């Protein structure tokens, strides 16, 4: 029999804490993937996922069934990810060494190999790395996880109109970046 998230939470809060394993089973994958997008590292992502579920367990009494457990958990996960990002400010973003250098490439070109043929998912993945993390997560929550605008707004603590605007701008940014990658690398064989 399928039990709702709210029913499981209620059971955990009444002392049947082992039921929490079901919550972990249901949501570990989206949380882990969220952490992986922030950390780009399997071990770090696993550590942060564990941290999220640990915190969620300790704060479960503050969960209100009026919201979905997924969005409550996701909000907690976003906060953990942001804390991690702040603590681990990467020097790569601070030192513009690569940006100031010209990118060499092999002169050998094969006209049959054109960037247009690259896997589009790969292209999207690259473009996603270039937009702000919050915009990226808003887009994925909306489209990948099919969350209502209202839930996305609650997760990020912003208004619904702001979410819609972010989505619109995010899609435009992705479109522009994907186009730029195409134009820049078109025809190169690297």
């Amino acid at each position, binding site marked *: 029999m399928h039990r709702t998230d709210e029913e499981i939470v209620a059971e955990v809060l009444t002392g049947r*804490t082992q039921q929490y*394993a079901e919550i972990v089973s249901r949501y570990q994958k989206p949380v882990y993937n969220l952490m992986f997008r922030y950390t780009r590292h399997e071990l770090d992502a696993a550590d942060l996922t564990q941290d999220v579920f640990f915190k969620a367990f300790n704060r479960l009494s503050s969960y*209100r069934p009026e919201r979905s457990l997924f969005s409550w958990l996701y909000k907690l996960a976003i906060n953990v990810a942001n804390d991690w990002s702040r603590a681990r400010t990467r020097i790569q973003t601070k*030192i513009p060494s*690569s940006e100031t250098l010209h990118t060499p490439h092999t*002169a050998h070109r094969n006209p049959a190999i054109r960037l247009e*043929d690259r896997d589009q998912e*790969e292209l999207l993945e690259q473009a996603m790395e270039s937009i702000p993390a919050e915009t990226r997560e808003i887009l994925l929550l909306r*489209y990948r996880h099919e969350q209502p605008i209202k839930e996305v707004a609650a997760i990020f603590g912003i208004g619904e109109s702001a979410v819609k605007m972010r989505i619109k701008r995010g899609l435009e940014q992705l479109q522009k970046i994907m186009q730029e990658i195409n134009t820049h690398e078109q025809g190169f064989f690297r």
Partner: protein
Amino acid sequence: MNKDSFDSEKIEMLLRRHPEHDVPPGLQQRIIASLPLGNRPEGIAFKLKSWWDRLMLPAPMPMKAGAVVAMIAAAFWLGTEVESRQKTGETALQVESTGMETAAGNSWTDNRIGMDSLEDQAGAYAIDFSSDETLSRQKSNNLDDLSDIFLSSEAVPIEDRQNFQAAGIPRIDSTLFLLNLAHNLADSGNYHGALHQYEKVLRLNPQDQTALYNRATSYHHLNDQEGERLAFLSYLDQFRSGRWAYQAVDHLQRLGVFDYQTCMIGGRKVVVNQAILLGSSPPARQRELERLVPSLRRPLSGELHLVVFYQNDLQKSRTIATELKQQIHSILGEDRALPIKTSWFDEAAPVQTGTGEKRELKTGLFLFTQPSTQQRSTI
């Protein structure tokens, strides 16, 4: 490809089917093991916490507001009582008598108090004034000194370290702490100091991706080309995918090092060590080819092209191409019959650096696949 190829609808569609990684094996068990689970009655502490959590929920009510005000007043009274008893009955740390606590909250002052306390072997007090956040705000060479003092185990008693961890602050000898320190030093232009810290991180974790990459970047800023070369080679020895790997290849090629090459296999960028693939060590070549297996096991349309250049030696280039082909087939096994088309030339491989300089490599190798039919149709 024209711009319409990436209209909003297509991007939305791609986002909907955005692939997700599987969680590492055993993650759920690990999470569960970390939790205080068990069918047991709620303790008083748990009930109090639950009550407090619910009280703090954003639903303003007169009773709740009254309770909160009463609790704050009680806490304030208790605090003043405790303070007055401490002042009369206990010998406070020397720092208190200096009046420095009045300046607490200022990052420089906090840092100084922390350092002085450490030197006085007052570990617990030092920790209060030397939080990670404080260290992050402070961007002077004092950080380096403080780190060294912190990291000498005699200065901070074990109990204080445990308290430090219990407070949720990262361990001071953790890679996170050292990385923050290194980032701050690099940020202030002290690349020698940053390098020193990155090396410390790598002694703790030789595979730390950030430290490996940033060590190379620091060498670059110090204009130490040999250090930069070795550091980027170390990075690529560990990491072959992602943006930083591609940039590491670019850095090396700018330095005139063409050991690594990026190839397109199945629409994805793959970094290969062509120096090893063209080298004379079969075991090394085998290990290098095994790194390509995930890319080659993916469904590829058409054949894999393998092109070998060996200046003035057609026979050798042909031999290497044939051997590589056989090794790839051997590694993939019979269940993955990948057609491989080999080509060989007795010419040098032409390359061009970022400065526009044209060069010729005596040996070279290219691996690539043809675009799929579906991909062609989108052109």
